[in-house]
């Protein structure tokens, strides 16, 4: 739910902290300029982040949903707006509209095992779901995180991955596409972890986020293991502008990704997923 009466009007937020995550990825901790505006969100939702005079981009919220402040966004600098955002520092101001969109099924998944599959910066939109699940650990069965990155230098949230891996109630497996000799972890694609993972397909809810090509192969592997499409949730990415289903920029078949997504139960969109053009 948005807490802004006018969903098209950005609320000014000040950058409280900038954290460099990877060479091209950074995290902004934001606090409202008026000091009172609070933004409650659910795991999987996104905000439109406005660089005044630069442009507006949809960015998933990567912080803890149990904490309303600071508002946390992890951003990969890939286009002109996000590259310009990378140059921002403490004290600078951005505009925030949101939160928007559907959520990871953290309530529906209670009582099930949870398999979380993330690729690259796709771990950021899943992090709020992980925080929620770990904060309510007793409500879930086995929890597994399978994460793939390009190289060891591209592993996002490394210290948290280590922390989660050190818990006794969560399995964390990380793999990279290639590495040099010093790397002691796995090398191979994330689908390989899914092929060999010891999860029970019947009892599993899978949350998948990453580039579409990675999600396609991850879903194929989950299906081969016996996880049905109605047990799989994906977060889609499209060119979102208004974020409220008016402008049509993010149309995906009969859906608007901003309003009907970004999180979809996969059986809703399976027929659209492999179309060559849409």
């Amino acid at each position: 739910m948005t807490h802004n009466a006018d969903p098209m009007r950005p609320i000014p937020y000040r950058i409280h902290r900038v954290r460099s995550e990877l060479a091209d990825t950074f995290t902004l901790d934001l606090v409202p300029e008026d000091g009172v505006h609070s933004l409650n969100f659910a795991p999987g939702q996104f905000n439109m982040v406005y660089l005044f005079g630069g442009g507006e981009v949809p960015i998933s919220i990567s912080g803890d949903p149990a904490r309303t402040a600071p508002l946390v966004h992890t951003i990969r600098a890939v286009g002109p707006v996000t590259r310009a955002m990378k140059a921002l520092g403490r004290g600078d101001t951005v505009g925030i509209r949101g939160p928007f969109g559907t959520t990871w099924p953290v309530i529906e998944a209670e009582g099930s095992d949870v398999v979380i599959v993330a690729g690259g910066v796709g771990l950021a939109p899943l992090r709020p779901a992980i925080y929620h699940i770990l904060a309510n650990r007793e409500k879930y069965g086995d929890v597994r995180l399978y994460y793939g990155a390009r190289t060891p230098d591209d592993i996002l949230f490394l210290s948290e991955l280590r922390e989660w891996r050190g818990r006794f109630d969560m399995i964390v497996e990380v793999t990279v596409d290639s590495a040099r000799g010093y790397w002691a972890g796995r090398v191979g694609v994330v689908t390989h972890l899914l092929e060999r993972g010891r999860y029970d397909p019947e009892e599993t809810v899978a949350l998948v986020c990453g580039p579409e090509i990675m999600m396609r192969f991850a879903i194929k592997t989950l299906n081969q293991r016996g996880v049905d499409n109605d047990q799989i949730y994906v977060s889609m990415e499209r060119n979102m502008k208004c974020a409220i289903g008016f402008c049509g920029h993010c149309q995906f078949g009969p859906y608007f990704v901003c309003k009907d997504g970004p999180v979809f139960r996969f059986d809703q969109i399976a027929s659209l997923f492999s179309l060559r053009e849409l």
Partner: protein
Amino acid sequence: MSTKIGLDRLIREHPFFQGMDAEACETLAGCAANERFNGGEYLIRQGEAANKFYLIRHGSVAQELRVPDRESIIVQTLHEGEILGWSWLVSPYRWTMDARAMQLTRVLSLDAECLRGKFANDPTLAYELFKRFIPVMASRLQTSRLQLIDIYG
């Protein structure tokens, strides 16, 4: 010290040979040996004769491409329950990569020349083995393709 009977059991219990009949496992055990590698030791060296393949029982192995004057690139790691090596099936029977134990690694090695001898007399055994190798080869080809297209890009 493992006996032939012990090797037979280890073969039968390895996921690669899941479902293989006991008699075939016993035959294969005649070509098998237990080996152990410390972390950092090489099981395989690129360009050398491919005269074995390995069932990984414990530990992990990094498959590395050697690049002159540069640090080797790890292209895949293999772990307990997986197999290492299919160059022994394909002429000119030379290893195409190095394979380094990443930690203490226990394997069963199967001797290629011995296996070829058994296959000559028992085509069914050859078929059973090839049936298991082809999905592994297909999976590794698929992995290479996914790595090539940079799925996290």
